[in-house]
């Protein structure tokens, strides 16, 4: 499967296409684009080591264990803080209405030089909800004057280059064809969007954190592993059949799917997650939810 990140020109071209259909998302895409530029510029500087051998990684997959449950990911505290600062600046530049305190986030008490490594150790296996809870428990939101969701988003945005770099290193050694779980084979996070691959229509899930892509059966719920075809359905807006919401009647969760075969092109799922925000609203109206949400629009 592909390496991360996609080419900047491709991202820009794809954003232009999306804006032709929905110019009201311009500011949201602008925020995304600036964050993406910062993340991409750091990806080359970050070196993450994979300590497991190819056979050990395959054993992890055979035992349904994601790689980071078998080895530690070293995150350099200073690089993380630099990234966080630049990402907060990028958000503020693209969205001047963003809270001013965002520019001070990297100077928060918990992120001081002596504490940042402990903070990263605490939170690096968290999902979005867990991080938000942690932020509230430690009163980081009160101390910084920022919403816990905003802090969580900024922190994860600064972590993405580390996790993506690690995923790139893993995928150079081993592919994810042995992996048949609904959570990420590298970092264990749950996907929020997927696609039907252009070449063969296979369902490819993508991790929102490390951007690993792996195959998952079309006729199985990725949230509860329900295989009963009678309780798996999907809906779409008739004017745009390529963007679908696959729902499970049993667990009442959903997953957005972009059909590349229908679009006849490869898509960038991070952008599609933003552009299909209306499908999330429709899914919620229909009574379906996402177990863990981490996209910019949610």
């Amino acid at each position: 499967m592909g390496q991360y990140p996609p080419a900047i020109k491709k991202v820009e071209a794809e954003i232009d296409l999306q804006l032709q259909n929905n110019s009201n998302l311009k500011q949201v895409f602008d925020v995304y684009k600036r964050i993406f530029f910062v993340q991409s510029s750091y990806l080359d500087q970050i070196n993450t080591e994979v300590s497991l051998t190819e056979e050990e990684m395959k054993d992890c997959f055979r035992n349904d264990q994601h790689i980071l449950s078998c080895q530690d990911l070293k995150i350099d505290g200073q690089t993380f803080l630099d990234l966080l600062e630049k990402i907060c600046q990028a958000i503020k530049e693209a969205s001047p209405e963003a809270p001013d305190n965002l520019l001070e986030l990297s100077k928060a008490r918990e992120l001081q030089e002596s504490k940042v490594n402990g903070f990263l150790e605490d939170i690096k296996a968290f999902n979005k909800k867990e991080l938000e809870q942690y932020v509230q428990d430690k009163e980081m939101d009160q101390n910084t004057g920022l919403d816990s969701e905003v802090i969580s988003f900024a922190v994860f945005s600064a972590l993405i280059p580390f996790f993506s770099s690690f995923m790139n290193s893993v995928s150079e050694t081993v592919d994810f064809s042995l992996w048949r779980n609904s959570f990420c084979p590298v970092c264990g996070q749950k996907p929020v969007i997927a696609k039907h691959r252009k070449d063969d229509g296979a369902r490819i899930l993508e991790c929102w954190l490390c951007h690993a892509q792996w195959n998952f059966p079309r006729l199985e719920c990725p949230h509860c592993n329900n295989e009963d075809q009678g309780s798996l359905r999907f809906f779409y807006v008739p004017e745009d059949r390529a963007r679908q919401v696959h729902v499970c009647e049993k667990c009442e969760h959903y997953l957005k799917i972009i059909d590349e075969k229908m679009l006849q092109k490869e898509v960038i799922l991070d952008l599609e997650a933003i552009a299909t925000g209306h499908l999330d609203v429709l899914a919620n109206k229909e009574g379906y939810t996402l177990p863990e949400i981490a996209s910019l629009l949610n």
Partner: protein
Amino acid sequence: MKVSRRNFLWLSGAVVAGSLAAKLGCAPEEEEPAVPDDPDEPDPDVEPEIDDVFRIEYAETLSQICSYCGVGCGVLCYVEDGKIISVEGDPDHPVSEGALCSKGAALYNKYYEYDEQGNAIVSPQRMTEVLYRAPGASDWEVKDWDWAIEEIAKRIKDTRDADFKETNDAGQTVNRCESLAWIGSAKCNNEENYLYRKFVAAMGIVNNDHCARL
């Protein structure tokens, strides 16, 4: 997807309202709602519900096996209101991995044909009920499944009872029925074939073959 500017303005607000994007300052500014002159008239500033703007359609995906040749490729059928709306190869099928030949890819046209206006209608040649033509008769009769299964069982039993041979002309034990034949299918799996073979042996049927050799 093209939607009116008004809807997009509304959509953008609906999606980002109370969301992370709004917290990051990306939400559209809220305006003071205008008060309509006539209270009975719909308020132009009250936006419609999202399901008034976007009509959605539900469909199901059902996995099937292509009905043409003995390869048995996997097919995904998209079904809306009980009707197939399209088919494609099943990427998770171990035999075909998403591929279909030209006949398989056109399975939709086995189910439908087009009327003079170009509308897809279920092919009138498609059999949806049991048809029976009695020996010597020229016309088909519609029968139900219970009748058909019972009749088949009865005729198999009658034929076997009439023709079962315990010994051959030389007096050797053979326990066979030469007046029945069994033809298997390329689409049966290992376990099904095991059961068929057991059934055939129990019946004493010796004329046992397979469609792929015919």
